[in-house]
């Protein structure tokens, strides 16, 4: 398992190659990339600053991946989340899951990002033409996590 919080960007191809290693049992890799959009809640986003709670973040992410392992037959998973100052089109988060069969990889990948969005201690502050604002949590994210 890889769980990382970093300011630097990540290379999706490299992370998927590391996730797969040389394991020939892997038949499926599902992945998700979250990206900074230039619009949020009807406002133009100029920059986004991500902060987290060091120490708790890694613990929360490992807990979410462990829960995914218990629920589905997956081979490995990687979660990489950036913090610091980002701009539209920047990558924020990568979740990648390997498994023998695709159903497990898709379900575990979507589960991990849904729980990351509602359980992992990250917060976004946006700079818009009207100034700075902390992003509000979304009901739709709570609903997405509650499905599982």
């Amino acid at each position, binding site marked *: 398992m890889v769980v990382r919080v970093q300011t630097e960007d990540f290379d999706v191809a490299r992370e998927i190659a590391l996730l797969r290693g040389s394991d020939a049992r892997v038949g499926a890799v599902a992945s998700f990339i979250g990206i900074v959009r230039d619009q949020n809640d009807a406002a133009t986003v100029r920059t986004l600053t991500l902060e987290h709670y060091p120490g708790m973040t890694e613990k929360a992410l490992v807990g979410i991946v462990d829960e995914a392992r218990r629920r589905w037959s997956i081979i490995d998973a990687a979660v990489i989340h950036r913090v610091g100052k980002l701009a539209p089109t920047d990558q924020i*988060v990568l979740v990648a899951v390997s498994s023998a069969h695709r159903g497990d990889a898709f379900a575990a990948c979507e589960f991990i990002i849904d729980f990351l*969005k509602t*359980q992992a201690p*990250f917060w976004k502050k946006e700079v818009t033409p009207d100034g700075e604002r902390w992003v509000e*949590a979304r009901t739709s994210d709570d609903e997405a996590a509650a499905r599982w």
Partner: protein
Amino acid sequence: MVELIYLARLRDRFGLPGESVALPGDVADVGALLAWLRSRGGAWSSELAPGRAVRVAVNKDVARADTPVRTGDEVALFPPVTGG
């Protein structure tokens, strides 16, 4: 002493990233801690008002109102998370 940590919007509103506090003897769980902080008034009263969504972690695990708080604990207060 208990180590309090304020994150994201709460750090901005309280104007500090955290503090070490000696809790009164009757403040033994998260619910009592929030009530005690609320009694400071001002941003403490408004940000921690019962209707507001505030999350608490004790020693980096998600906590509830009845989670015990003991000397030496690290207690973090933060708004609902918005990562990903």
